[in-house]
């Protein structure tokens, strides 16, 4: 029962973060974020290989997503 409450609480906290409208930068200030190494999927191959190793040897898997960040162009 407490576990379920923990899960719901953690989920609700994460949904509140959508309201962080005052954080961020102007569109032309994304020079550092536009760098390839700052992209969330910048080392996709390595991350995929690592994830495969850890899925096979541990009981937990998943977590990442790759949307967002970057130069914000188009």
């Amino acid at each position: 029962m407490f576990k379920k409450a923990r899960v719901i609480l953690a989920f609700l906290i994460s949904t509140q973060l959508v309201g962080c409208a005052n954080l961020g930068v102007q569109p032309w200030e994304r020079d550092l974020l536009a760098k390839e190494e700052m992209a969330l999927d910048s080392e996709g191959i390595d991350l995929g290989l690592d994830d495969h190793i850890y899925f096979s040897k541990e009981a937990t898997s998943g977590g990442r997503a790759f949307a967002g960040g970057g130069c914000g162009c188009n």
Partner: protein
Amino acid sequence: MRYFRLSMLIILISSTPLSLSFAQEIAAPDFAISNAQLPNKLSDLAGQVVYLDFWASWCKPCRQSFPWMNQMQRKYAAQGLQIIAINLDAESSLAKDFLDKVPAQIPVIYDPEGNIASDYQLIGMPSSYLIDKTGKVRFAHKGFFTHTEPLYEEELVLLLNE
């Protein structure tokens, strides 16, 4: 019931209104220009159709926009079109590296602190604004797409024929 909250969140997110572009029909904010090919300020270009393009070296779609802008400038210069590329790199040396690889046949001015960009309330990169002969902003574009090139050209022609 377990998924009610989740589905509500999805519905809420997808119904958020689309971002609005820069207000139309407003006098284009003036700014000083320091480029040998151009007059001292934007308002001195009254009588010409001005296409302002805000770009940066780190913006990949800008690589597609330059060839098109070069082509448009060549085609319509005689009819009174002036395209100006405004660079927003924090370090202008990066802009020069970009221009070595992607030649520009249009004048480039530098706004490293983003003052002009703030005046034009940019909402995305790259952004472009079409200013008519009376100095009013008539069209604003967010982003650059090859499939919209014909549309942008139509807008240019419309303003040039006024």
